[in-house]
């Protein structure tokens, strides 16, 4: 870990903050060019920020985003691209919902039901990601390709299973289709917030716990060290006795298990059923959030909250007559500019360090001195 000096803190903040300012400027230009007043947007967002319901929804959305980001980050730390978080969480949510909604669960105590549901989701997520890991270590198949393909396969499997002959129930008069509603005892109660019709998901704490474990395992255990070492230099890791194959499998399984959790806050806290309305695409958002938060447990939390808030202001923007698509544009520009900004700061840092080392050794010569 780097020591915390004011300078290093400033350097750490300049990239994300600079990217946000840049994104705001680009969005303002786009709004002006399409004949909208950027201040209307700011106004609408400020209004949204004062509405308890929007804040609660933002926090709830951020919970899923955060879990998804952690799942992606576990792979990222080892240079593994788990693009399949999306398929993993959807498949896991469906099967967990099928289990949680099954009649035999009614007789079990509430805690056991919730624990079984969450465990099932983690197992399914891990298994689905494990397929990609297996292909990678045995046949050398790139996990990028295999996880993307597994996403498509998951879509078909989910669609096949989510039918009345299998896991779903069809209700008269409804055009929706989904697993039976989880009864009271299988749900995770939320927290009432004054002035908001939505409750804060109880599983917000699950996300916090996962974030803590992610930090702990990576920075305080031998496994975490080996994982990071493999990511930084595979050959060095091999030389020091790390089994890369084992690391690939374990980290993909962990990534998949966390991915399995992504759908849980929504399933156990709000929808109580996996239906056609279950949110999609959270796995891809996790990639952006992990990038923005630099795979750091706190950084990703801030990024997830920002993403959740932006997503939930869309209705307010729409109401104020600002095209809601500006949110997509903002998010896109933020991701792109953050990646560029981090790179610029990294280069600056490397150069500054080289200079500092040079000075410390007292042997540095400026370009003029060299040519002189």
């Amino acid at each position, binding site marked *: 870990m780097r020591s915390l000096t004011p300078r290093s803190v400033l350097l750490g903040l300049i990239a994300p903050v600079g990217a946000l300012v840049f994104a705001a400027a680009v969005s303002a230009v786009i709004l002006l060019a399409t004949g909208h007043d950027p201040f209307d947007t700011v106004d609408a967002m400020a209004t949204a920020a004062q509405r308890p319901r929007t804040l609660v929804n933002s926090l709830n959305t951020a919970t899923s985003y955060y879990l998804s980001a952690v799942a992606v980050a576990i792979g990222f730390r080892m240079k593994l*691209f788990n693009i399949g978080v999306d398929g993993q969480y959807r498949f896991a949510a469906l099967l967990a919902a099928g289990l949680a909604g099954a009649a035999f669960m009614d007789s079990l105590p509430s805690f056991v039901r919730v624990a079984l549901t969450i465990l099932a989701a983690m197992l399914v997520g891990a298994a689905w990601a494990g397929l990609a890991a297996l292909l990678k270590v045995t046949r050398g198949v790139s996990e990028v390709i295999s996880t993307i393909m597994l996403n498509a396969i998951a879509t078909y499997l989910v669609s096949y299973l989510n039918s009345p002959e299998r896991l779903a129930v*069809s209700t008269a008069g409804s055009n929706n289709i989904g697993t039976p509603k989880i009864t009271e005892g299988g749900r995770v109660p939320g927290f009432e917030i004054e002035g908001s019709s939505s409750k804060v998901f109880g599983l917000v704490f699950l996300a916090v716990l996962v974030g803590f474990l992610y930090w702990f395992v990576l920075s305080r255990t031998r496994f975490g060290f080996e994982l990071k070492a493999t990511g930084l230099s595979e050959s060095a890791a091999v030389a020091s006795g790390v089994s890369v194959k084992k690391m690939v499998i374990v980290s993909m399984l962990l990534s998949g298990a966390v991915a399995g959790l992504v759908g849980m806050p929504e399933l156990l806290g709000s929808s109580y059923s996996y239906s056609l309305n279950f949110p999609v*695409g959270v796995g891809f958002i996790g990639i952006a959030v992990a990038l923005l938060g630099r795979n750091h447990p706190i950084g990703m939390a801030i990024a997830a909250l920002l993403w959740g808030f932006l997503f*939930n202001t869309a209705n307010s923007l729409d*109401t104020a007559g600002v095209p809601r698509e500006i949110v997509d544009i903002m998010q896109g520009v933020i991701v792109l500019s*953050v990646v560029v900004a981090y790179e610029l700061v990294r280069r600056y840092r490397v150069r500054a360090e080289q200079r500092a080392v040079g000075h410390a050794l007292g042997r540095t010569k400026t370009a003029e001195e060299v040519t002189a």
Partner: protein
Amino acid sequence: MRRTRGVRLAAGLLALGLGLAGCGSKNNDSGSSGGTTTAGSAAAANLKIGLAYDIGGRGDQSFNDSAARGLDKAKSEFGFEVKELEAAAGETEAQKEDRLRQLVEGGYNPVIAVGFAYAESVGKVAGDTPDVQFAIIDDATDGVDVGKNIANLTFAENEGSYLVGAAAALKSKTGNVGFVGGVNTPLIQKFEVGFTMGVKAVKADATVQVKYLTQPPDYTGFNDPAKGETAAKGMFDAGADIVYAAAGGSGNGVFKAAKANTKLGIGVDSDQYNQPALADVKDVIITSMIKKVDVAVYDFISSVKNGKFVAGQKVYDLKAGGVDYATSGGKIDDIKAKLDDYKQKIISGEIKVPEKK
């Protein structure tokens, strides 16, 4: 380090690309149409109408646009103030509920929700705000979105599809027809069930090829003409000579394939023979299964205007004129008598068309 950087950039671009791919093209002017309109002198009461679209919103050339037509008609006739909001991909129940609540908080009453995705949120918000009148299209589920202040506007797509199925069988020379569904959901399966039954009613031994373009939650099947074209071409190659496109915007591709193979197609939702966007291929469209969402929206608004709001399910079936087959282009004039005979039998209850397989 070089690899790290490349990898990081690649991930950024990938995340962006995947994110953007999910957005699809949207028409931007739906959000900005919230301006106040002065009430026409004809309006007895000055209503503020809120309308929440499903994903795609105004400009989807399909279901949402049909609702928009009904709204536009009411707006121009009565001069009401309207506010249109639109759903985004990746939403949960919370965002849908928030949308409806924002309309209610903005003083909009009645509020119209387009699509079954709003079932739960309409139920919740309507329960909390008993003074506001709601309408939901395509859903009427007991215990979810049925209530004293909710009108459930549903359609008998199966009945309309039965008639175009009969038309297909009567017009087919090969005894082999096709059904292209946009996305494999219970709603589109209703079209398939009716169509197949209509075909078999005319020709019991006819072959019906069935293909859905995508599986949920991949809803691109409603807006991917290339997929529609490939699917239809496959059916024509396998001997079909008429294909029913129950696939929203993907239908364009089906008609294109029909034209290229000198075969025929059947449209859906609106009278597609008369759609300007389909002028090139309209000569292959023998009929369309019309689902009058616009009429339902307009009827609902005028019922509220006249103080005659009726809660509960209103079925727009053949009897109510909510679904029908189109005759534009005159390609089925010769079998019109037979089709009307079937139509009468369905209306009188002699033929019952099931909704599910």
